[in-house]
């Protein structure tokens, strides 16, 4: 076995179970080559040094600071709005459909634009000529008054 193959097997032994044959081979190779065994010990030293010895933390009052941030930045309101629509999505959809139906009923033409309130309605009604009252500023202000 080459030193690289032995190193590979040694590293694998740190993360997974080796078969009996692999274990035997590794032990035999390390006994045969003490300088290599000493060199490979570095891998174990790295592992031991990296392993956490005490619980990690984000510092004092992390939870308090976090909840204050949530309360102050409107995350609660955003969540409540989301929850409301999620909880009452059928009702919300019903209200929207209802508004569209009303829009259609009160529009003059049934078109997609009218349904969504996008048409520009113009009045075509005119006043009959016999109902038009003339108004003369000169006569009204100077003669009649």
């Amino acid at each position: 076995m080459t030193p690289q193959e032995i190193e590979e097997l040694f590293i694998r032994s740190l993360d997974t179970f080796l078969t009996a044959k692999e274990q035997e081979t590794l032990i035999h190779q390390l006994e045969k080559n003490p300088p290599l065994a000493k060199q490979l010990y570095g891998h174990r030293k790295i592992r031991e040094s990296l392993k956490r010895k005490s619980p990690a933390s984000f510092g004092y009052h992390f939870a308090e600071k976090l909840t204050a941030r949530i309360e102050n930045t409107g995350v609660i309101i955003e969540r409540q709005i989301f929850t409301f629509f999620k909880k009452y999505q059928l009702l919300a959809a019903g209200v929207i459909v209802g508004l569209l139906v009303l829009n259609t009923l009160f529009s003059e033409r049934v078109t997609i634009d009218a349904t969504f309130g996008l048409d520009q309605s113009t009045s075509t009604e005119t006043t009959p000529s016999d109902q038009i009252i003339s108004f003369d500023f000169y006569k009204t202000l100077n003669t009649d008054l």
Partner: protein
Amino acid sequence: MNQQSDDDLLEASRRGDMNAFRILVDRNESKVAGIIKPMLGDTPEAVDIGQEVFIRFYESLDKFKGESSLSTYLIRIAINLSLNELKKRKRRNSFFSPEEAGMHVNADNEQTDWKDVLHHELNNLEAEFKSVVTLRMIEGYSTEETATLLNIPLGTVLSRLSRAQKKLKTMLANYL
């Protein structure tokens, strides 16, 4: 309230009970910090990302159905946000030198503890290695758990661990 189960606290949090949510944060802070700090270092950004993890969790309280444990769920968010932050840093560092980006450690100083150097060298590993090293070597999750948390095959975990281990040993050749 500290004796309540996670499920009870989750239900209370969903109803808007911030005290219940605070207890959930307290219970899981160390697990989340254990992932984020080795990946991002002991920096203010790490604390910000830690807060972001719990804010995302708070926003998705209704979506969390308990298919995985709460800590697994939070660890996955923590890994994803840390990897995103590392990508941002990589882009930033392509414009600034490592010193300007605040990553300098005096590794040449003879007085420097080799464990400090080890943790510094950890910063120099690529993101894909950092996540397996953090979960397996630092936090002590099994290789199977590491594969599940990262959603990658077990063989990939083993090969990344092996490559990361060799890289670290090469980087620390003068200290071992």
